[in-house]
Every structure is written in C-alpha cells, then in structure tokens.
C-alpha cells in the first residue's frame, strides 16, 4: 500500500443519491502525474465520481484519499490543490471573464497577474471585459478552463473538457489541462480512441460499477466501445 506515492486512492467507494446507488465499490490507485480516463455510458456515474473527488459530495462508504488526505474528513486540506471543470462553468454570467477569474484568484490567494496571463493564453484577452453571458458556448468553456487551473492545482478533474471547444481551442488549452501540464488528471470522455490516447489508467463504469480497470496500454478501443453496448 505504502510502496509508491499515489495521488488518488479509492477503496470500496460507494455513493448514493437517495435510494439509487450511483457508484458502487470503486477501488483504484492513481500515481502522481498520471492520467485516469473514466469511460461509461450516460448516467454511469462519471460526473458523480469526479464530484466526490472534488470534495463536493461525500462518499457513503469506502475510503477516498486525494493527495494523501482522506475525504471527507480532511477535505479542507486538499481543496486548494484541486481543479474542477464540469458540465457547468461555475461562472457569473453578469460578470466579465476577468472579474470572474479575479474573484476566484482572490478566493485562492493567487496573484491577480495570473488572470491576465491565462486570458491571453486562451485568446480571450480582447473579450475579457464583456459579461460572460454574451460569450459563445466555447468561449465560456475556455473561461471555465482558466478557472480550473488558476491556482495551479496538483490534481485536475475534467468532465468532458473538450465539449464545445473547437480544435484550435483544444490545442490552446493543451498546456493548461493536457498531459503537458504535468498534473495528475482524472478525465471523462465519450470518445474511446481520443480518450484512450490520453490515458495512463482506464476505468470503465456501467451503472456505477467498475467493469474495467486496467493500464491504458492493456486496453483496446474495442474494449472501451464494448462498454456502450446494451
């Protein structure tokens, strides 16, 4: 157990919503700086898993360790080192991208200069002072990506990060949220081939149960595609 440092360790993680068990007995170990890709049909529990890791939902059974800290007890100790990008951008539509990011920078105790840097990196500089609700969907997603990496998190939790992004934007974001960022990453994907290419470790979920857990090298695209057959 204590042989190698693991960024994320799950042991028998179970989570319910009301009476519906959404994650059941998920166990895995993800070493630092590696990428876990979670596959599974709609409603399999991918987003729920990410929310548990993000300390937003507490596990109902099993142990969850992120960066060596057990959740939910020591959640406060990891919060500053996690970055989450979900279906929901978590931005105020009436504030501009810059104002939104500055707000988060203050909350995380990050120097405000970082905000302008990031805005330039995702090519939003010119629109940065317009309210977010006037942005196109892809521009919102870029802003949300900036929010997720603002505080230079050690662990990135990415829920279909490329949805609504154009190929150019995906490239732009690569140094921030891609493998190049050198962070430990957990990401969900609906694209077997592209997802597999990113992965070090693959988790397949079906109805909340882990049906596939293997190093990416041992998983074929066909195996992933199989997950979606009903």
């Amino acid at each position, binding site marked *: 157990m204590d042989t190698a440092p693991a960024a994320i360790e799950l042991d028998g993680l179970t989570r319910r919503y009301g009476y519906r068990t959404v994650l059941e007995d998920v166990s895995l170990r993800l070493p630092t700086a590696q990428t876990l890709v979670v596959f599974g049909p709609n409603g399999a529990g991918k987003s729920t898993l990410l929310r548990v890791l993000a300390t937003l939902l507490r596990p109902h059974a099993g142990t969850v360790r992120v960066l060596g800290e057990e959740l939910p007890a020591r959640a406060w100790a990891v919060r500053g080192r996690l970055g989450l990008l979900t279906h929901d951008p978590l931005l*105020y539509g009436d504030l501009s991208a810059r104002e939104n990011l500055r707000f988060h920078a203050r*909350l995380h105790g990050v120097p405000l200069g970082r905000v302008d840097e990031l805005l330039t990196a995702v090519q939003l500089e010119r629109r940065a002072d317009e309210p977010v609700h006037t942005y196109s969907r892809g521009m919102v997603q870029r802003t949300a990506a900036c929010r997720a990496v603002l505080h230079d998190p050690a662990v990135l939790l990415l829920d279909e990060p490329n949805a609504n992004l154009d190929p150019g934007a995906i490239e732009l974001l690569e140094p921030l949220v891609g493998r190049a960022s050198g962070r430990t990453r957990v990401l969900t994907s609906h694209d077997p081939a592209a997802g597999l290419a990113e992965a070090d470790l693959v988790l397949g979920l079906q109805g909340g149960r882990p049906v596939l857990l293997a190093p990416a090298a041992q998983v074929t695209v066909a195996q992933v595609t199989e997950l979606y057959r009903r």
Partner: protein
Amino acid sequence: MTGRPPTPSPPRVTSTRTAVGALLRKELLLERRVPQVLPAMALFSVVTFVVFRFALDTTSVEGDTASGVLWVTLLFAAMLGAGRLFVADHEEGGIEALLLAPVDRTALLLAKATTFFAFLAFVELIAVPAFAILLLEPGLSLGDVGRLALILALADFGIAVIGTLFGALAIQTRARDLILPLMALPLLVPVVISAAKATAPVLAATGAGAVPGRYLAVLGLYDLVFGLLAYAVFDYLLDD
C-alpha cells in the same frame, strides 16, 4: 512521514478574512452592475410611503401606527432582499465554486450576512428620512435618531442572520422559495414586533418616550442566539 505521498505543495488555505473580502467584493460588483441603486432605493421608499399615505388616508402618522408602517415596509424590503441574496450564486454555480476554494465555509455566512446587513442599512438610510419627511407627524430629534439607529441595527442583525441562514437552506434544498418565507417569516415575527414596539415611543407625537428596555433586550438576545446558531450550523447547510 514515511510512505506518505509527497504533496507537491502544502495545504493551501485562504484566510477567512481574505475570503470574506473577496466575496464582499464580488457582491458589490454584481450589485454595481445594477446601476443607480441609491436613487432606486430612494424611489422605492418614497413610493411605498405614498402608497401608505393614500391607503391609510391620513396625511400623517405617529407612534404605534407610524412604527407599524415603518416596520412592515422594512420587512417587505427585507423579503425582496433575502429572496435575491443567493439567486445569482445558485443560478450560476457560485456556491460550488466557493466550496471548491480552500476557504472556511462560514466565510460565506459572514459575507452574505454582511451584504444583507449593508443592504438593509442602506435601505433604511434612505427610507427612514423619507418616512420622517413624508409621513411622520413630529420631526425626529437627534436623540431620536440615535435611539432609532440602535433599534434598527439590532433588528437588522437578526434579519440578516435569519435571512442568510434560510436563504442558504432554501437554495440547497430544491424547495428554494418555499423554505425561505415558510421558515424565515415566522422566525422574524419576534424581531419585527419587538422592533416595532421599541420604535413606537420614539415616533410618538407627544414627544419621544423612553425606549422600553425589554424590547431591546429581546432583540439583543435574539441576535445572540441566532448569531451563534447560524455560525454553528451553517457548515452543514452547504455540505453535499
């Protein structure tokens, strides 16, 4: 520390003070987007009192009636305020964003309650003079103003705490707007009644009487109890 995975950086925690500062700043920014709040507030109170003046069909009020009118108006303003307190956060996931930050969750309570308190104080800053000019029979002496300010501050504190607590509760449970009035309004009855009772002698035409101490005591006690209670339970409201 053997076997413990190397943490790339030590736990980063933002101090509650910084967090409250950031949150207040954001509230202010969102509020500033709604321009001309000051004149709008002035308009609002004037219109309200004009409505009262007409509906009650008296050209002026004093004592009990005055105090009743004043406090019902403030209650109305408070309801308007409390309803919108968490709306932006809820709609746009602001609460989650906060929960993701390395910040004590009570920072949100502090920031929201402060915002709400400031909102109420702001309304009163305009509504009370408007009230005195438009409706009140006797003028207000400087001493009266002082006494009134004390009552207002005590009541506002209670309203702000209750409003924030149940505002957060309402947002978290899906029942939103049901919870807020259903629980907050009955809970606010003692505050408003004590405040109205305490205010009545100040507004009396016969010259301001002494503020009955027991109503102030009730207000103070209320503030203390619910202040501590809110501080204690607020965390749980936001969890999960």
